[in-house]
């Protein structure tokens, strides 16, 4: 009897010791909500969060993350009112929000290092250069974009000779010839169109020298000011998830499909591959994925102002901060703590 009690006490102590382990001073678990800017799909910031959740990285960082997805554009308002704490948004959109309505949101890691949009023409189309756009039907989604206007200027295109048509979000209009040039998200519609049997060629603004940046992680000013360590922890876990995804793309897609039920797997893989291409450049190879270059934000802001993408100017330092992403990396490698 006594031996049994002693044995169980020893076992109990041993268990406790194992669980305790080399643990740091316990940090209270913070509950936060991340809302992806669109429906579940293989956009790189989403993938980062999915992976971090799957692998328990958030838990390791004493975070309990609830993952949501936006259906309309409500994520910006939810973030601004701190109903959610983290989201995604393109650098240009963040600038527009801050400029037009003073929405207190800020980019904390630049995942997409190039413009996420480009213009597609059918592969068999005679349109080869920008100048060939004259006399053609060029589509625009909701409004004529700054990219479009910049491309026209770059190519010396006479805008009055181009027929601008408002299009919806259905790429089939390019298939049946209702438009000759169709604005696309580089990681998305080109693959969709190829699957419809209509391969396309792209006019890519970034390649042609137009300033552009893609998706970033965003948070609200309140979090930056009052809970910077939570922001750092969230970013750290997400970036580790992202690194895992880049290392094992198949596993990443497996995780994506858990959220993106009903989506086409091959299409999701295309999206992932394209976005990974767009996340790496010399800057990120030196400083880590998500690195932010202030001069590029200035260039983007000035570009948008020039072409009417921004109604009025905005202080670049109000739309992004690199203090979090800088601390994550040493010599380009993620520091895990």
């Amino acid at each position, binding site marked *: 009897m006594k031996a049994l009690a002693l044995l169980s006490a020893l076992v109990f102590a041993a268990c406790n010791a194992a669980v305790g382990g080399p643990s740091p001073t316990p940090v209270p678990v913070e509950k936060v909500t991340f809302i992806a800017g669109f429906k579940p799909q293989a956009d790189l910031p989403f993938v980062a969060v999915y992976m971090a959740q799957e692998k328990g990285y958030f838990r390791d960082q004493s975070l309990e993350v609830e993952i949501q997805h936006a259906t309309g554009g409500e994520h*910006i308002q939810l973030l601004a009112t701190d109903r959610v704490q983290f989201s995604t948004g393109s650098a240009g959109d963040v600038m527009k929000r801050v400029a037009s*309505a003073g*929405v207190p949101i800020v980019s904390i890691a630049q995942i997409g290092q190039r413009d996420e949009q480009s213009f597609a023409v059918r592969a068999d189309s005679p349109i080869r250069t920008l100048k060939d756009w004259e006399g053609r039907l060029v589509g625009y989604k909701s409004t004529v974009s700054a990219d479009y206007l910049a491309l026209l200027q770059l190519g010396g295109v006479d805008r009055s000779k181009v027929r601008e*048509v*408002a299009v919806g*979000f*259905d790429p089939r209009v390019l298939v049946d010839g209702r438009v000759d040039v169709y604005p696309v998200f580089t990681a998305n519609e080109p693959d969709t169109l190829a699957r419809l049997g209509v391969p396309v060629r792209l006019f890519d603004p970034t390649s042609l020298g137009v300033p552009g940046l893609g998706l970033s992680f965003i948070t609200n000013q309140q979090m930056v000011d009052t809970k910077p360590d939570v922001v750092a922890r969230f970013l750290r876990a997400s970036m580790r998830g992202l690194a895992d995804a880049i290392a094992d793309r198949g596993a990443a897609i497996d995780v994506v499909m858990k959220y993106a039920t009903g989506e086409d797997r091959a299409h999701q893989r295309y999206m992932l591959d394209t976005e990974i291409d767009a996340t790496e450049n010399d800057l990120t190879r030196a400083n880590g994925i998500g690195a932010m270059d202030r001069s590029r934000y200035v260039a983007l802001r000035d570009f948008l102002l020039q072409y009417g993408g921004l109604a009025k100017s905005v202080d670049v330092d109000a739309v992004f901060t690199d203090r979090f992403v800088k601390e994550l990396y040493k010599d380009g490698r993620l520091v895990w703590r």
Partner: protein
Amino acid sequence: MTVRRTLVDLAVALVAIAAIAVVLEIWTRTFRVPSYLLPAPSAVAARMATDAGLLAREGGITLSEAAGGFVIGTGVAFALATVMASSRPFERTLFPLAILVKLTPIVAIAPLFTLWFGFGTAPKVAIAALITFFPMLVNSFVGLRSADLQEVAFLETLGASGREIFRHLRVPSALPYLFSGARISLNLALIGAVIGEWTGADRGLGRVIFVANANLDLTILFAAILVLATIGIAANAVVGAAERRVLHWHPIAVAT
């Protein structure tokens, strides 16, 4: 008498709206609600003034799309109802098809219409027509059928032809139903035109709302919605006035 009544109703409505606006104004100011969450009514009003021309033009476009769709939808519905009212087999085959049309969510169909009809006004008119179709079909059918059977017998006794009975009895019997259907359908047609504009348009209030939403410009968004509501109310009033004239003999019209 009726004119005075209408003015009183209008005054009451305006007072109610003003009261709500005052409450919202105080709320947004007191709690410093940012404009991208809820714009102050004064800001919306100011925006309506500065963009009055734009809102009027775009409103006119949406209205014309809705009106065109309403006319087409009603025309087709009435024609079909005539066929259905005269023949049971037709009624049995056409009614399920009509229900199928009704149950198809407009938001899902709208992009297809843009694909089939192009980017001009055609798909918006088509959507407005589609959304108008079912209520007007039901109302036309019930209205045509509501013709008193005894009266039909009376006219048959006089040797009246089917066409004469249709013209003298069924159509007038259907008019009250058609008017009440029109009240519903006109507003639905407006919504249909707006939804049509969301899937690809460069004109119209729907487009204004769409772009405003994308830009988080809630001030113009609410301004556009108010203009849309005003158009809907005005349209209703016009139908009501026409109804009172045409249906002056109707006991309900007389009582109000």
